Protein backbone atom coordinates (compact mmCIF):
# COMPACT_ATOMS: atom_id res chain seq x y z
CA UNK A 1 0.00 0.00 0.00
CA UNK A 2 2.85 2.33 0.88
CA UNK A 3 4.54 1.52 -2.44
CA UNK A 4 1.32 2.40 -4.24
CA UNK A 5 1.17 5.74 -2.42
CA UNK A 6 4.80 6.53 -3.36
CA UNK A 7 3.99 5.53 -6.93
CA UNK A 8 1.03 7.95 -6.99
CA UNK A 9 3.15 10.79 -5.57
CA UNK A 10 5.74 10.25 -8.26
CA UNK A 11 3.06 10.06 -10.94
CA UNK A 12 1.07 13.12 -9.76
CA UNK A 13 3.53 15.27 -7.73
CA UNK A 14 1.50 18.51 -7.98
CA UNK A 15 -1.66 16.79 -6.77
CA UNK A 16 0.30 15.41 -3.81
CA UNK A 17 1.76 18.84 -2.99
CA UNK A 18 -1.71 20.38 -3.30
CA UNK A 19 -3.03 17.87 -0.72
CA UNK A 20 -0.13 18.52 1.66
CA UNK A 21 -0.47 22.31 1.26
CA UNK A 22 -3.97 22.06 2.80
CA UNK A 23 -2.08 21.58 6.06
CA UNK A 24 -0.77 25.20 5.86
CA UNK A 25 -4.14 27.02 6.21
CA UNK A 26 -5.07 24.41 8.80
CA UNK A 27 -2.00 25.16 10.93
CA UNK A 28 -2.15 28.94 10.46
CA UNK A 29 -5.88 28.77 11.22
CA UNK A 30 -5.16 26.97 14.50
CA UNK A 31 -2.42 29.48 15.42
CA UNK A 32 -4.55 32.53 14.53
CA UNK A 33 -7.87 31.03 15.62
CA UNK A 34 -8.57 33.65 18.31
CA UNK A 35 -8.13 36.44 15.75
CA UNK A 36 -10.35 34.86 13.08
CA UNK A 37 -13.61 36.60 12.23
CA UNK A 38 -16.89 34.68 12.05
CA UNK A 39 -16.53 34.25 8.27
CA UNK A 40 -12.93 33.08 8.52
CA UNK A 41 -13.87 30.60 11.27
CA UNK A 42 -16.44 29.10 8.92
CA UNK A 43 -13.76 28.85 6.25
CA UNK A 44 -11.40 27.29 8.78
CA UNK A 45 -13.94 24.56 9.66
CA UNK A 46 -14.32 23.90 5.95
CA UNK A 47 -10.53 23.56 5.63
CA UNK A 48 -10.61 20.91 8.38
CA UNK A 49 -13.37 18.99 6.58
CA UNK A 50 -11.55 19.47 3.26
CA UNK A 51 -8.35 18.07 4.74
CA UNK A 52 -10.19 15.01 6.07
CA UNK A 53 -11.89 14.47 2.71
CA UNK A 54 -8.49 14.78 1.00
CA UNK A 55 -7.13 12.09 3.31
CA UNK A 56 -10.07 9.87 2.50
CA UNK A 57 -9.66 10.43 -1.25
CA UNK A 58 -5.93 9.61 -1.01
CA UNK A 59 -6.78 6.49 0.94
CA UNK A 60 -9.31 5.43 -1.71
CA UNK A 61 -6.91 6.17 -4.57
CA UNK A 62 -4.21 4.13 -2.82
CA UNK A 63 -6.71 1.25 -2.77
CA UNK A 64 -7.04 1.81 -6.52
CA UNK A 65 -10.72 2.82 -6.32
CA UNK A 66 -12.54 5.76 -7.89
CA UNK A 67 -12.47 8.79 -5.56
CA UNK A 68 -14.15 11.34 -7.84
CA UNK A 69 -17.38 11.17 -5.82
CA UNK A 70 -15.42 12.69 -2.91
CA UNK A 71 -14.06 15.42 -5.20
CA UNK A 72 -17.59 16.21 -6.39
CA UNK A 73 -18.91 16.24 -2.84
CA UNK A 74 -16.06 18.53 -1.71
CA UNK A 75 -16.94 20.87 -4.57
CA UNK A 76 -20.56 20.99 -3.43
CA UNK A 77 -19.51 21.68 0.13
CA UNK A 78 -17.00 24.30 -1.02
CA UNK A 79 -19.54 26.37 -2.96
CA UNK A 80 -21.92 26.24 0.01
CA UNK A 81 -19.28 27.47 2.45
CA UNK A 82 -17.91 30.17 0.14
CA UNK A 83 -21.40 31.53 -0.52
CA UNK A 84 -22.21 31.46 3.21
CA UNK A 85 -18.96 33.35 3.93
CA UNK A 86 -19.89 36.04 1.40
CA UNK A 87 -23.47 36.16 2.69
CA UNK A 88 -21.99 37.17 6.05
CA UNK A 89 -19.54 39.62 4.51
CA UNK A 90 -22.22 41.60 2.65
CA UNK A 91 -24.82 43.54 4.54
CA UNK A 92 -26.93 44.96 1.70
CA UNK A 93 -30.19 43.15 1.14
CA UNK A 94 -29.87 43.00 -2.67
CA UNK A 95 -26.34 41.59 -2.51
CA UNK A 96 -27.36 39.01 0.07
CA UNK A 97 -30.32 38.01 -2.07
CA UNK A 98 -28.09 37.62 -5.14
CA UNK A 99 -25.55 35.48 -3.26
CA UNK A 100 -28.34 33.35 -1.77
CA UNK A 101 -29.73 32.85 -5.28
CA UNK A 102 -26.27 31.76 -6.52
CA UNK A 103 -25.92 29.41 -3.56
CA UNK A 104 -29.30 27.84 -4.22
CA UNK A 105 -28.57 27.45 -7.96
CA UNK A 106 -25.11 25.96 -7.40
CA UNK A 107 -26.32 23.50 -4.76
CA UNK A 108 -29.28 22.53 -6.93
CA UNK A 109 -27.12 21.99 -10.03
CA UNK A 110 -24.45 20.29 -7.90
CA UNK A 111 -26.95 17.72 -6.61
CA UNK A 112 -28.68 17.37 -9.95
CA UNK A 113 -25.47 16.78 -11.89
CA UNK A 114 -23.74 14.78 -9.16
CA UNK A 115 -21.62 12.00 -10.59
CA UNK A 116 -20.09 9.14 -8.64
CA UNK A 117 -17.64 8.03 -11.33
CA UNK A 118 -16.63 11.20 -13.25
CA UNK A 119 -15.90 14.88 -12.55
CA UNK A 120 -19.25 16.75 -12.50
CA UNK A 121 -18.01 19.42 -14.92
CA UNK A 122 -21.17 21.52 -15.11
CA UNK A 123 -21.23 22.29 -11.35
CA UNK A 124 -17.45 22.89 -11.42
CA UNK A 125 -17.82 25.57 -14.10
CA UNK A 126 -20.92 27.06 -12.53
CA UNK A 127 -19.25 27.22 -9.10
CA UNK A 128 -16.22 29.05 -10.49
CA UNK A 129 -18.39 31.56 -12.30
CA UNK A 130 -20.33 32.05 -9.07
CA UNK A 131 -17.08 32.68 -7.18
CA UNK A 132 -16.18 35.41 -9.67
CA UNK A 133 -19.62 36.98 -9.19
CA UNK A 134 -19.49 36.89 -5.37
CA UNK A 135 -15.99 38.35 -5.46
CA UNK A 136 -17.19 41.15 -7.76
CA UNK A 137 -20.06 41.81 -5.36
CA UNK A 138 -17.64 42.04 -2.46
CA UNK A 139 -15.17 44.22 -4.39
CA UNK A 140 -18.08 46.55 -5.12
CA UNK A 141 -18.79 46.78 -1.38
CA UNK A 142 -15.11 47.27 -0.65
CA UNK A 143 -14.72 50.12 -3.13
CA UNK A 144 -18.00 51.88 -2.40
CA UNK A 145 -17.34 51.95 1.35
CA UNK A 146 -14.04 53.16 2.68
CA UNK A 147 -14.34 51.36 5.98
CA UNK A 148 -11.22 49.26 5.32
CA UNK A 149 -8.11 51.24 6.19
CA UNK A 150 -5.44 48.87 4.96
CA UNK A 151 -6.63 46.41 2.35
CA UNK A 152 -3.48 44.32 2.70
CA UNK A 153 -4.44 43.42 6.26
CA UNK A 154 -8.10 42.81 5.35
CA UNK A 155 -8.65 38.99 5.39
CA UNK A 156 -11.61 38.91 2.91
CA UNK A 157 -9.44 40.67 0.31
CA UNK A 158 -6.99 37.76 0.34
CA UNK A 159 -9.83 35.26 0.20
CA UNK A 160 -11.21 37.15 -2.83
CA UNK A 161 -7.74 37.19 -4.42
CA UNK A 162 -7.49 33.44 -3.85
CA UNK A 163 -10.94 32.82 -5.29
CA UNK A 164 -10.19 34.91 -8.38
CA UNK A 165 -6.97 32.99 -9.05
CA UNK A 166 -8.75 29.70 -8.31
CA UNK A 167 -11.70 30.46 -10.58
CA UNK A 168 -9.97 32.15 -13.52
CA UNK A 169 -7.20 29.57 -13.51
CA UNK A 170 -9.45 26.54 -13.72
CA UNK A 171 -12.77 27.55 -15.26
CA UNK A 172 -11.70 27.03 -18.88
CA UNK A 173 -10.06 23.72 -18.04
CA UNK A 174 -13.30 22.46 -16.49
CA UNK A 175 -15.29 23.97 -19.35
CA UNK A 176 -13.43 21.61 -21.67
CA UNK A 177 -13.24 18.96 -18.98
CA UNK A 178 -14.96 16.27 -21.06
CA UNK A 179 -12.11 16.46 -23.57
CA UNK A 180 -9.21 16.66 -21.14
CA UNK A 181 -10.22 15.43 -17.69
CA UNK A 182 -12.77 12.69 -18.37
CA UNK A 183 -11.75 9.05 -17.94
CA UNK A 184 -11.66 8.55 -21.70
CA UNK A 185 -9.42 11.63 -22.30
CA UNK A 186 -5.73 11.15 -23.24
CA UNK A 187 -3.87 10.35 -20.02
CA UNK A 188 -0.94 12.75 -20.60
CA UNK A 189 -3.44 15.59 -21.18
CA UNK A 190 -5.25 14.70 -17.98
CA UNK A 191 -2.00 14.76 -16.01
CA UNK A 192 -0.93 18.07 -17.57
CA UNK A 193 -4.20 19.92 -17.03
CA UNK A 194 -4.87 18.41 -13.64
CA UNK A 195 -1.38 19.53 -12.61
CA UNK A 196 -2.32 23.08 -13.64
CA UNK A 197 -5.45 22.81 -11.49
CA UNK A 198 -3.32 21.53 -8.61
CA UNK A 199 -0.91 24.48 -8.93
CA UNK A 200 -3.90 26.84 -8.91
CA UNK A 201 -5.21 25.00 -5.82
CA UNK A 202 -1.83 25.51 -4.13
CA UNK A 203 -2.05 29.27 -4.77
CA UNK A 204 -5.61 29.33 -3.44
CA UNK A 205 -4.63 27.56 -0.25
CA UNK A 206 -1.62 29.85 0.24
CA UNK A 207 -3.83 32.91 -0.18
CA UNK A 208 -6.22 31.46 2.40
CA UNK A 209 -3.16 31.17 4.67
CA UNK A 210 -2.52 34.90 4.13
CA UNK A 211 -6.18 35.62 4.88
CA UNK A 212 -5.91 33.76 8.22
CA UNK A 213 -2.52 35.29 8.96
CA UNK A 214 -3.56 38.94 8.46
CA UNK A 215 -6.62 38.49 10.71
CA UNK A 216 -4.30 39.24 13.63
CA UNK A 217 -3.27 42.60 12.16
CA UNK A 218 -6.80 43.65 11.27
CA UNK A 219 -8.06 42.76 14.73
CA UNK A 220 -5.21 44.77 16.28
Amino acid at each position, binding site marked *: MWERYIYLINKYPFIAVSDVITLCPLLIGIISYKYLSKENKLLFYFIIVHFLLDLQSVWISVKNQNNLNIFNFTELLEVTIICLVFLQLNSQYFKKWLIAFLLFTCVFVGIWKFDFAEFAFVPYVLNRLSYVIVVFIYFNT*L*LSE*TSVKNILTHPPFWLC*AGLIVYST*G*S*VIIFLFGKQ*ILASDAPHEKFVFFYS*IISIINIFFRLLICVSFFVSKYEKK
Partner: protein
Amino acid sequence: MFDSENPYSLIIIGTTILLLMGVVLIVFVAYYQQKQLRKDLNQQKQIQELRTEMQRQLLESALEVQEVERVRIAKDLHDEVGAMLSVTKMSFNQLLRKLDNAQDLATMGKQTRELLEQSISQVRRISKELVPSTLEEFGLISSIDEFIQKVHLASATSFIFSHEGIDIKQRFDKKIELTIYRLIQELVNNALKHADAKEISLRLTTENNKIIFTFTDDGKGFDFENTRKDPKSGLGMRNMESRLSVIDGTLDIKSQIGKGTKTIIEIPI
Protein backbone atom coordinates in the same frame (compact mmCIF):
# COMPACT_ATOMS: atom_id res chain seq x y z
CA MET B 1 4.82 28.26 -29.95
CA PHE B 2 1.13 27.38 -29.73
CA ASP B 3 -0.79 25.67 -32.43
CA SER B 4 -3.98 27.66 -32.94
CA GLU B 5 -5.67 24.61 -34.45
CA ASN B 6 -4.90 22.60 -31.33
CA PRO B 7 -7.74 22.93 -28.74
CA TYR B 8 -5.32 22.21 -25.87
CA SER B 9 -3.23 25.26 -26.79
CA LEU B 10 -6.37 27.37 -26.85
CA ILE B 11 -7.31 26.14 -23.38
CA ILE B 12 -3.86 27.08 -22.08
CA ILE B 13 -3.96 30.50 -23.77
CA GLY B 14 -7.50 31.13 -22.51
CA THR B 15 -6.59 30.06 -18.97
CA THR B 16 -3.45 32.23 -18.99
CA ILE B 17 -5.36 35.28 -20.24
CA LEU B 18 -8.14 34.80 -17.68
CA LEU B 19 -5.61 34.27 -14.91
CA LEU B 20 -3.73 37.42 -15.89
CA MET B 21 -7.00 39.36 -15.96
CA GLY B 22 -7.77 38.02 -12.50
CA VAL B 23 -4.39 39.14 -11.16
CA VAL B 24 -4.79 42.56 -12.78
CA LEU B 25 -8.23 42.86 -11.20
CA ILE B 26 -6.83 42.08 -7.74
CA VAL B 27 -4.01 44.60 -8.13
CA PHE B 28 -6.44 47.21 -9.48
CA VAL B 29 -8.88 46.74 -6.58
CA ALA B 30 -6.07 47.01 -4.02
CA TYR B 31 -4.67 50.14 -5.70
CA TYR B 32 -8.05 51.79 -6.30
CA GLN B 33 -9.26 51.09 -2.76
CA GLN B 34 -6.14 52.71 -1.31
CA LYS B 35 -6.55 55.66 -3.68
CA GLN B 36 -10.20 56.08 -2.64
CA LEU B 37 -9.24 55.87 0.99
CA ARG B 38 -6.51 58.50 0.59
CA LYS B 39 -8.98 60.74 -1.24
CA ASP B 40 -11.54 60.31 1.52
CA LEU B 41 -8.97 61.00 4.21
CA ASN B 42 -7.82 64.12 2.36
CA GLN B 43 -11.40 65.33 2.08
CA GLN B 44 -11.98 64.72 5.78
CA LYS B 45 -8.74 66.57 6.55
CA GLN B 46 -9.79 69.51 4.38
CA ILE B 47 -13.23 69.64 6.05
CA GLN B 48 -11.55 69.57 9.44
CA GLU B 49 -9.17 72.34 8.42
CA LEU B 50 -12.09 74.40 7.13
CA ARG B 51 -13.96 73.88 10.39
CA THR B 52 -10.91 74.90 12.41
CA GLU B 53 -10.40 77.96 10.23
CA MET B 54 -14.07 78.89 10.56
CA GLN B 55 -13.89 78.52 14.34
CA ARG B 56 -10.74 80.62 14.38
CA GLN B 57 -12.42 83.34 12.33
CA LEU B 58 -15.49 83.24 14.54
CA LEU B 59 -13.31 83.60 17.60
CA GLU B 60 -11.38 86.41 15.98
CA SER B 61 -14.64 88.21 15.16
CA ALA B 62 -15.89 87.68 18.70
CA LEU B 63 -12.68 89.14 20.11
CA GLU B 64 -12.85 92.07 17.72
CA VAL B 65 -16.47 92.73 18.69
CA GLN B 66 -15.42 92.54 22.33
CA GLU B 67 -12.68 95.11 21.76
CA VAL B 68 -15.01 97.41 19.82
CA GLU B 69 -17.54 97.17 22.64
CA ARG B 70 -14.81 97.96 25.17
CA VAL B 71 -13.88 101.07 23.15
CA ARG B 72 -17.52 102.13 22.97
CA ILE B 73 -18.06 101.67 26.73
CA ALA B 74 -14.78 103.45 27.49
CA LYS B 75 -15.74 106.33 25.19
CA ASP B 76 -19.21 106.59 26.72
CA LEU B 77 -17.78 106.51 30.23
CA HIS B 78 -15.14 109.09 29.44
CA ASP B 79 -17.14 111.42 27.22
CA GLU B 80 -20.59 111.17 28.72
CA VAL B 81 -20.52 109.92 32.31
CA GLY B 82 -17.12 111.55 32.94
CA ALA B 83 -18.22 114.85 31.39
CA MET B 84 -21.49 114.80 33.33
CA LEU B 85 -19.62 114.18 36.55
CA SER B 86 -17.16 116.99 35.79
CA VAL B 87 -20.00 119.41 35.08
CA THR B 88 -21.71 118.26 38.28
CA LYS B 89 -18.45 118.89 40.16
CA MET B 90 -18.13 122.42 38.75
CA SER B 91 -21.75 123.16 39.52
CA PHE B 92 -21.24 121.80 43.00
CA ASN B 93 -18.16 123.98 43.50
CA GLN B 94 -20.23 127.03 42.68
CA LEU B 95 -22.89 125.87 45.13
CA LEU B 96 -20.24 125.40 47.81
CA ARG B 97 -18.92 128.93 47.33
CA LYS B 98 -22.41 130.23 48.00
CA LEU B 99 -22.75 128.04 51.10
CA ASP B 100 -19.53 129.31 52.73
CA ASN B 101 -21.46 130.75 55.65
CA ALA B 102 -23.36 127.63 56.52
CA GLN B 103 -20.53 125.64 58.16
CA ASP B 104 -22.36 122.29 58.47
CA LEU B 105 -23.62 122.37 54.94
CA ALA B 106 -20.16 123.35 53.68
CA THR B 107 -18.59 120.28 55.39
CA MET B 108 -21.19 117.97 53.86
CA GLY B 109 -20.67 119.66 50.54
CA LYS B 110 -16.89 119.08 50.70
CA GLN B 111 -17.45 115.41 51.44
CA THR B 112 -19.81 115.15 48.50
CA ARG B 113 -17.24 116.90 46.28
CA GLU B 114 -14.59 114.38 47.33
CA LEU B 115 -16.98 111.60 46.42
CA LEU B 116 -17.52 113.24 43.06
CA GLU B 117 -13.76 113.55 42.50
CA GLN B 118 -13.32 109.88 43.37
CA SER B 119 -16.11 108.97 40.96
CA ILE B 120 -14.47 110.97 38.18
CA SER B 121 -11.08 109.35 38.72
CA GLN B 122 -12.70 105.90 38.93
CA VAL B 123 -14.50 106.50 35.63
CA ARG B 124 -11.19 107.61 34.06
CA ARG B 125 -9.41 104.56 35.40
CA ILE B 126 -12.08 102.14 34.19
CA SER B 127 -12.17 103.88 30.84
CA LYS B 128 -8.40 103.61 30.50
CA GLU B 129 -8.34 99.97 31.57
CA LEU B 130 -11.01 99.06 29.07
CA VAL B 131 -8.95 100.43 26.22
CA PRO B 132 -5.20 100.40 26.69
CA SER B 133 -4.54 103.76 25.01
CA THR B 134 -0.83 103.52 25.87
CA LEU B 135 -0.69 100.32 23.86
CA GLU B 136 -2.14 102.01 20.81
CA GLU B 137 -0.01 105.13 21.12
CA PHE B 138 3.34 103.94 22.49
CA GLY B 139 3.45 100.19 21.92
CA LEU B 140 3.68 96.97 23.88
CA ILE B 141 6.71 97.65 26.10
CA SER B 142 5.42 101.01 27.37
CA SER B 143 1.94 99.67 28.00
CA ILE B 144 3.26 96.63 29.93
CA ASP B 145 5.50 98.97 31.91
CA GLU B 146 2.59 101.26 32.73
CA PHE B 147 0.34 98.33 33.63
CA ILE B 148 2.78 96.69 36.04
CA GLN B 149 3.58 100.04 37.67
CA LYS B 150 -0.10 100.57 38.36
CA VAL B 151 -0.51 97.07 39.77
CA HIS B 152 2.65 97.49 41.85
CA LEU B 153 1.25 100.66 43.40
CA ALA B 154 -2.02 98.94 44.26
CA SER B 155 -0.46 95.74 45.67
CA ALA B 156 2.59 94.56 47.59
CA THR B 157 3.82 92.47 44.67
CA SER B 158 7.12 93.36 43.05
CA PHE B 159 7.67 93.06 39.32
CA ILE B 160 10.72 92.35 37.18
CA PHE B 161 10.20 93.19 33.53
CA SER B 162 12.84 92.61 30.87
CA HIS B 163 12.61 92.93 27.11
CA GLU B 164 15.77 91.60 25.52
CA GLY B 165 16.25 92.44 21.87
CA ILE B 166 13.03 94.44 21.71
CA ASP B 167 13.26 98.19 21.50
CA ILE B 168 10.90 100.24 23.64
CA LYS B 169 9.42 101.81 20.50
CA GLN B 170 9.27 98.57 18.51
CA ARG B 171 5.80 97.82 17.18
CA PHE B 172 4.25 94.47 16.31
CA ASP B 173 1.01 93.53 14.63
CA LYS B 174 -1.93 95.18 16.40
CA LYS B 175 -3.58 91.81 17.12
CA ILE B 176 -0.36 90.40 18.59
CA GLU B 177 0.19 93.42 20.83
CA LEU B 178 -3.38 93.37 22.10
CA THR B 179 -3.30 89.61 22.70
CA ILE B 180 -0.07 89.81 24.70
CA TYR B 181 -1.41 92.74 26.70
CA ARG B 182 -4.68 90.93 27.51
CA LEU B 183 -2.80 87.76 28.42
CA ILE B 184 -0.56 89.73 30.78
CA GLN B 185 -3.66 91.23 32.40
CA GLU B 186 -5.12 87.72 32.86
CA LEU B 187 -1.84 86.23 34.12
CA VAL B 188 -1.17 89.07 36.59
CA ASN B 189 -4.75 88.89 37.78
CA ASN B 190 -4.40 85.12 38.36
CA ALA B 191 -1.05 85.52 40.11
CA LEU B 192 -2.47 88.11 42.53
CA LYS B 193 -5.95 86.72 43.02
CA HIS B 194 -5.32 82.97 43.18
CA ALA B 195 -1.59 82.45 43.70
CA ASP B 196 -0.79 85.24 46.24
CA ALA B 197 2.44 85.89 44.36
CA LYS B 198 5.04 88.15 45.97
CA GLU B 199 7.25 88.47 42.95
CA ILE B 200 6.34 88.35 39.29
CA SER B 201 8.82 88.22 36.46
CA LEU B 202 7.96 89.10 32.88
CA ARG B 203 10.41 88.45 30.07
CA LEU B 204 9.81 89.36 26.46
CA THR B 205 12.21 88.25 23.71
CA THR B 206 12.20 87.50 20.02
CA GLU B 207 13.73 84.36 18.58
CA ASN B 208 13.42 82.68 15.16
CA ASN B 209 10.62 84.99 14.02
CA LYS B 210 8.72 84.39 17.24
CA ILE B 211 7.86 86.52 20.21
CA ILE B 212 8.57 84.54 23.34
CA PHE B 213 6.94 85.79 26.48
CA THR B 214 7.83 84.15 29.79
CA PHE B 215 5.77 84.86 32.85
CA THR B 216 6.98 83.53 36.19
CA ASP B 217 5.45 83.95 39.63
CA ASP B 218 6.46 82.63 43.06
CA GLY B 219 2.88 81.98 44.11
CA LYS B 220 1.10 78.88 45.40
CA GLY B 221 1.12 77.06 42.11
CA PHE B 222 -1.64 74.69 41.03
CA ASP B 223 -2.38 71.27 39.55
CA PHE B 224 -2.36 72.12 35.87
CA GLU B 225 -4.22 69.03 34.57
CA ASN B 226 -7.02 69.18 37.15
CA THR B 227 -7.48 72.93 36.76
CA ARG B 228 -7.64 72.57 33.02
CA LYS B 229 -10.37 69.92 33.26
CA ASP B 230 -12.41 71.97 35.74
CA PRO B 231 -15.03 73.93 33.74
CA LYS B 232 -15.00 76.83 36.22
CA SER B 233 -11.36 77.32 37.15
CA GLY B 234 -10.08 76.33 33.71
CA LEU B 235 -12.03 79.07 31.97
CA GLY B 236 -9.25 81.66 32.13
CA MET B 237 -6.76 79.18 30.75
CA ARG B 238 -9.07 78.24 27.88
CA ASN B 239 -9.71 81.93 27.17
CA MET B 240 -5.96 82.49 26.90
CA GLU B 241 -5.63 79.49 24.59
CA SER B 242 -8.52 80.75 22.46
CA ARG B 243 -6.97 84.19 22.15
CA LEU B 244 -3.65 82.66 21.19
CA SER B 245 -5.19 80.29 18.65
CA VAL B 246 -6.37 83.30 16.64
CA ILE B 247 -2.79 84.39 16.07
CA ASP B 248 -1.37 80.84 15.91
CA GLY B 249 0.32 81.24 19.28
CA THR B 250 1.04 78.50 21.79
CA LEU B 251 0.76 78.39 25.55
CA ASP B 252 2.84 76.23 27.86
CA ILE B 253 2.08 76.30 31.57
CA LYS B 254 4.30 74.59 34.11
CA SER B 255 3.16 74.67 37.68
CA GLN B 256 3.70 72.73 40.85
CA ILE B 257 1.85 73.23 44.09
CA GLY B 258 4.00 75.40 46.36
CA LYS B 259 6.57 76.11 43.67
CA GLY B 260 4.97 78.84 41.61
CA THR B 261 3.98 78.93 37.98
CA LYS B 262 5.88 79.46 34.76
CA THR B 263 3.99 80.31 31.60
CA ILE B 264 5.70 80.43 28.23
CA ILE B 265 3.87 81.97 25.30
CA GLU B 266 5.19 81.74 21.77
CA ILE B 267 3.69 83.80 18.99
CA PRO B 268 4.91 83.77 15.37
CA ILE B 269 5.56 87.29 14.11
